[in-house]
């Protein structure tokens, strides 16, 4: 089992043969389980999967995401959520159930270019993923700067139990909102803090695979403080 | 046409029959459809042929005229072979500039004949580096039922074999046609193209339109009179194993020889 865990793989690599289930990012060819993505292999509950180190966001129900409004029809908005498909936000989600397309103008609430904090409400391959903003803390993002990361870097940016993100927020007094889809919004009243936070996030993205990254970030942020 | 939608029942029938080594129209796996060739069908052209391969029909015409040689190739004549699919050949054909399928078709047919060295172009020089004979072979697909590669190739070869090259003399530094005289077409070999499709594990020769629409991959192999391979083109969005490629090579030589006999009968008129 050890030789399957934490093995670096690229597409086509045979991870193992044997009585395992093929899970995400692998496929079965005869009795061989073969990686289909660049990433790290893992065995979980007698299934083999690969955690990808690159690629666009794959929507999962309840994921918190940040989207950019691309366009709209009379019934919904289309958002760029860094996925293969646009996220669809139905007008009724924002206007309520008695939404009337003849009366309620979509652009009065959200227009092209707006940033939105949302959750994935539904996702199946036959349709574009549905998103919702009907909780508190969701909806239009009024201020902040957007950075786009690879979704595979999000866990590293959050850190174990939030340790990495807290380190950055504490040192820079910035508020960082992380979408599972790799879109991140950073806001701060202090322009220097904002710049430091952006630098730190960029460093996490570039050095995600480097050990002791949290200490390195702390050093970088500490050495710049007043 | 490869994007035409084939109904699922037909596709299932084709693949089920193939598992038993059978085809819907009763042909053997390595058996091409009936091939009929008529030459001299366009008298105004210097050479021509109409080919029917099953229900696929191609009309080929050859125009021969003096031309400037290609730079660096002043010691040989010009040979250019094209192919186009006429909109009346199939409901899905659109008018307009050639798409990638048609471009591939033309280039594969051209290469099969060119690489075999069928026409000895060194015999077609009027004035070295200045004036040579240009042989332009143009194929028009008029009815589509799969395997345009072979149909166009056979039409081109038959046209070349039966064409009459006018005689030009150089008078005042300019080529002038000598009426009533022709020269022999300098032919060195007879290339025969054989297109095979892979459906599942079976290799079939000369796929018709239905088989073309369910195939996993295809390969066109051209052989010359000596039984050697002179051009190959794989197509389709899947692949072949090495063993399958070797088998395709063998089939192309054997089936090619049989078709060569049919084409030979046509030569000259």
């Amino acid at each position, binding site marked *: 089992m050890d030789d399957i865990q934490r093995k*670096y793989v690229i597409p086509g690599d045979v991870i193992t043969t044997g009585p395992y289930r093929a899970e995400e990012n692998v496929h079965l060819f005869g009795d061989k389980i073969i990686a289909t993505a660049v990433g790290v292999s893992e065995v979980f509950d007698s299934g083999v999967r690969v955690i990808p*180190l690159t690629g666009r966001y794959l929507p999962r129900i309840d994921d918190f995401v940040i989207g950019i409004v691309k366009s709209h029809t009379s019934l919904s908005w289309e958002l760029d959520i860094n996925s293969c498909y646009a996220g669809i936000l139905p007008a009724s989600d924002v206007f309520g159930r008695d939404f009337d397309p003849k009366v309620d103008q979509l652009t009065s609430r959200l227009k092209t270019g707006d940033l939105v904090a949302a959750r994935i409400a539904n996702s199946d391959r036959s349709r574009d993923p549905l998103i919702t903003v009907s909780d508190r803390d969701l909806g239009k993002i009024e201020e902040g700067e957007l950075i786009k990361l690879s979704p595979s870097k999000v866990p590293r940016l959050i850190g174990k139990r939030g340790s990495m993100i807290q380190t950055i927020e504490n040192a820079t007094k910035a508020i960082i909102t992380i979408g599972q889809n790799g879109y991140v919004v950073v806001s701060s009243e202090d322009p220097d803090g904002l710049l430091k936070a952006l630098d730190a996030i960029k460093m996490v993205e570039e050095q995600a695979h480097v050990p002791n990254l949290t200490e390195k970030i702390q050093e970088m942020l500490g050495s710049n403080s007043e | 046409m490869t994007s035409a939608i084939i109904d699922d029942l037909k596709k299932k029938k084709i693949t089920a029959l193939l598992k038993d080594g059978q085809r819907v129209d009763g042909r053997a796996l390595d058996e091409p459809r009936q091939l009929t060739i008529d030459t001299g069908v366009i008298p105004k052209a210097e050479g021509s042929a109409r080919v029917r391969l099953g229900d696929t029909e191609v009309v080929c015409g050859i125009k021969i005229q003096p031309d400037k040689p290609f730079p660096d190739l002043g010691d040989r004549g010009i040979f250019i072979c094209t192919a186009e699919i006429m909109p009346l050949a199939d409901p899905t054909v659109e008018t307009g500039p050639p798409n990638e399928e048609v471009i*591939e078709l033309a280039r594969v047919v051209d290469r099969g004949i060119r690489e075999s060295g069928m026409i000895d172009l060194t015999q077609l020089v009027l004035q070295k580096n200045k004036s040579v004979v240009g042989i332009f072979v143009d194929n028009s697909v008029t009815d589509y039922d799969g395997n345009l590669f072979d149909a166009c190739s056979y039409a081109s070869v038959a046209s070349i074999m039966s064409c009459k090259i006018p005689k030009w003399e150089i008078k005042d530094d300019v080529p002038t046609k000598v009426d009533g005289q022709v020269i022999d077409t300098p032919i060195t070999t007879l290339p025969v193209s054989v297109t095979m499709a892979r459906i599942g594990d079976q290799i079939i020769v000369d796929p018709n339109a239905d088989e073309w629409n369910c195939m996993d991959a295809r390969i066109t192999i051209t052989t010359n009179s000596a039984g050697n391979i002179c*051009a190959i083109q*794989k197509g389709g*969005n899947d692949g072949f194993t090495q063993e399958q490629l070797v088998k395709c090579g063998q089939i192309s030589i054997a089936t090619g020889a049989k078709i060569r006999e049919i084409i030979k009968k046509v030569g000259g008129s």
Partner: protein
Amino acid sequence: MGVRKTDIVLLDDKGIRCDGRKIDQPRRIMIKAGVLKNANGSAYIEFGENKILAGVFGPRDVHPKHLANTDRGIMRCRYHMQPYSVSERKNPAPSRREIEISKVIKEALEPAVMLENFPRTVVDVFIEVLQADGGSRCAALDAAAVALADAGIPMRDMVSACAAGKVADTIVLDINNEEDQEGQADMPVALMPNLGKITLIQLDGVLTPQEYEKCIDTAVSGCKLVYEVQKNALRDKFFGDGAQ
């Protein structure tokens, strides 16, 4: 496809080719993954004197929408040569040769990419040949496959390409520009190395049936060598110092 002259010595009596290589020796190959900021995936290759850049976008929405396939994603591929890539300036407009090569490359990559996972999307592969030498379509394919993996697009296997050919009556691996012009046959081949499927094969030139089999064997061995370079390119980018 070129004149068959015999002015230059393509193979001397010690078995050395016109550029100093042995019969089964490929040219120098270098691949770097992830070289462009905006493309979802990218790669740069130097294969002999070929210098080629590949960029991939997708899977993404298809425009115009009527091109979309409801059951599976589609792939579009553009192989394009820069005007300065060859000795005589090439017109920037796509030539029929480039269009055919684009199609052949697309059909070599499609079997590897799991397009059925992404209905109604497109994967766009853009290949720019900055400098061309013999075997540019194989080099282009090698870069494109790395770019697809770099983009995180699920693939059943890598695709590795290399050409073999006949020069001075001998089957040789990876023919260069002179050998392409003056030699007797040129056979580019692409292989999915773990699944053992050949997804591109073309031939110009005359081969006996025995030479045909040997040529395929030789090209396949070249593909496997290229595969190692592709693997290292991806490992260098993603696994960094922690690579096994």
